[in-house]
């Protein structure tokens, strides 16, 4: 099996689906000649032409709104938002329109649309190139939200998203693009859009997380193992819907739960995981469900000392695990 970076795996997923299905198209800012600001769509325009890999105007509501229209008329658009931060002008099209079209038409219409967007920080991107805004969308019925944390899942979730009959928000951690490399099968395969993944088995603490924090979590679990504490790392992967069974199962088995994420905690994915654990595993808990995430500040600052302060690193995560282990 070829070794691909996370970025290459995303690109391979798009390319394979575009070869398979002529209704799949890519639409977004700079996706054409430039191949996207991160290179995700590199080479696609020369293979599939200017229409199927179409540079949009600089207007995100346009990107998503036009993609919705195309989806209603037989296409399967992959809309690229250049940075997840810039998805906000498209929130009305996503939440009022894409998410509700099937429901409001009593099932007559549906909207097969993928919105890809790079999120996350630690890349010296400052307030507006580092955000993790997925929580806002994870509340919204009618949407699916996925975040791959390995090259394998990056391709498999992308293919599944393209084939899904409904809108899927596919968020890619920009720090993963070139830093993660792994085995990616040739050809088409899908990863289900509603299943978590045990990234590392363990027994004493179940650590639920997603995105680049999975990588941090695995390192922290290594540290803890050396100290004699067995940590299970669950990559949530699908943030809406969350995999209730995997969450309940991990919590029940381990009895102690830590939820970790990059952005601030209030009304977030971590909140929901904690609430699910409370509902599903109360009798099994040996300690309070703990959460760790970014501080409650409006964004990740640019200056390195500030950015470092914002991010949950291996040490902070390990410290929290130790606190839980000691409980």
């Amino acid at each position, binding site marked *: 099996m070829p070794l691909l970076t996370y970025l290459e795996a995303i690109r391979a997923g798009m390319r394979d689906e575009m070869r398979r299905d002529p209704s799949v198209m890519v639409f977004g800012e700079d996706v054409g000649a430039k191949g996207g600001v991160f290179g995700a769509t590199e080479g696609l325009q020369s293979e599939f032409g200017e229409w199927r890999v179409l540079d949009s105007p600089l207007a995100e509501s346009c990107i998503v*709104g036009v993609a919705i229209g195309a989806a209603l008329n037989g296409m399967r658009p992959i809309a690229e938002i250049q940075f997840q931060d810039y998805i906000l002008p498209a929130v*009305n099209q996503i939440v*009022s329109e894409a998410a509700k079209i099937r429901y409001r038409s009593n099932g007559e219409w549906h909207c097969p649309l993928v919105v890809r967007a790079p999120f996350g920080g630690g890349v010296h991107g400052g307030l507006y190139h580092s955000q993790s805004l997925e929580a806002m969308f994870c509340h919204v019925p009618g949407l699916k939200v996925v975040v791959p944390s390995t090259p394998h899942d990056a391709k498999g979730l992308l293919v599944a998203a393209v084939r899904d009959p409904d809108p899927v928000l596919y968020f890619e951690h920009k720090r993963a693009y070139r830093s993660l490399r792994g085995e990616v099968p040739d050809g088409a395969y899908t990863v289900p859009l509603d299943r978590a993944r045990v990234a590392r088995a363990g027994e004493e603490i179940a650590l639920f997380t997603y995105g680049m924090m999975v990588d941090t979590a695995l390192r922290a679990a290594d540290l803890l193992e050396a100290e004699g504490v067995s940590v299970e790392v669950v990559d949530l992967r699908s943030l809406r819907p969350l995999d209730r069974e995997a969450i309940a199962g991990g919590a029940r088995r381990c009895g102690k739960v830590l939820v970790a994420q990059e952005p601030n905690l209030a009304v977030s994915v971590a909140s929901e995981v904690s609430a699910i654990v409370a509902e599903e595993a109360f009798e099994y808990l040996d300690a309070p469900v703990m959460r760790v995430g970014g501080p409650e500040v409006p964004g990740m600052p640019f200056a390195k000392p500030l950015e470092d302060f914002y991010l949950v690193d291996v040490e902070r995560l390990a410290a929290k695990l130790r606190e839980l282990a000691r409980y």
Partner: protein
Amino acid sequence: MVVANKDVRAATGVDAGTLRTIYRHMLRSRLLDERMWILNRQGLAPFWISGMGHEAVQVAMALHLRPGVDWLAPYYRDLSMTLVLGITPREQLLAALARADDPATGGRQMPAHFSSRRLNIVSTGSAVATQLLHAAGVALASRMRGEDAVTVACVGEGATSEGDFHEAVNFAAIHRLPVVFLVENNGYAISVPIEKQMPTPDVADRARGYGIPGVVVDGCDPVLCYLRCGEAVARARRGRGPTIIEAKVLRLTSHSSDDDQRRYRTTEALEAERQRDCLIAFGHRLAGLGVLTPSAAEAMRVELLAEVDQATREAEAAPEPRPETALLHVVGEGAEAG
């Protein structure tokens, strides 16, 4: 009095049969619209939002479209347009009464949220102006597949203040997509008059900034509407790109059944609008042209009213949605079964 069709065509640019068809569609829509108000006032339909005063341009536009081939992204005033395309009065009434069999939304949306997959009428929500981008996307797909379908998108003048209006016109114009943007300018956005909505009287002026034609037409003149809409649709079909057509129409009712326009418009202004009612004026005109005698018009009314009556009875008798069906159709497949 029978007049030769060629004389009518010479006088109006349109043949007599088409004129009668236009009148008939306008009247049908008006009668159904009036019925909706009655049902609302009777407490049977909790909400209505009317197309009265917008009929002429809607009928004129719709007659240039091929139902199920061309596309429509409508807004809530497009009762006439959707009737012409083939949504039946019974279906409209099922929606107004929020019945289970409402084919547009299954009673899930407020009335006048038109939708028909069969007729290529795109499902609409309530947030204004979003449909303009959908129309551009629909047209993009038609264009990519080399089809000759035309997409019409409708919007009130107030909603053209939304950013989506600009983004849609810009995108459609860049790629010369087969879209016609129909602005139904009735001078008000709920209570906000056009002077507070935009700096110039004509939305169509904006077209020049996008290098496309912008056409203002008297929305009380069905003949002119028919001609101008035909040109715009033909232009789009020929691959020459989008047009903005702005019809100056009347809002003969309050914004909706929840509004009372006497709070913000003078009695005189309201009376003056009523005097210009496009349906009445067109009736007189057709009588004068000898195309439709008053007695023929009356017979038409009786026949159409019977259709509305029958549809009302059927809709009233239709069942409401079952409560637990509220859980259906969130996402496809698996979830649908659940």
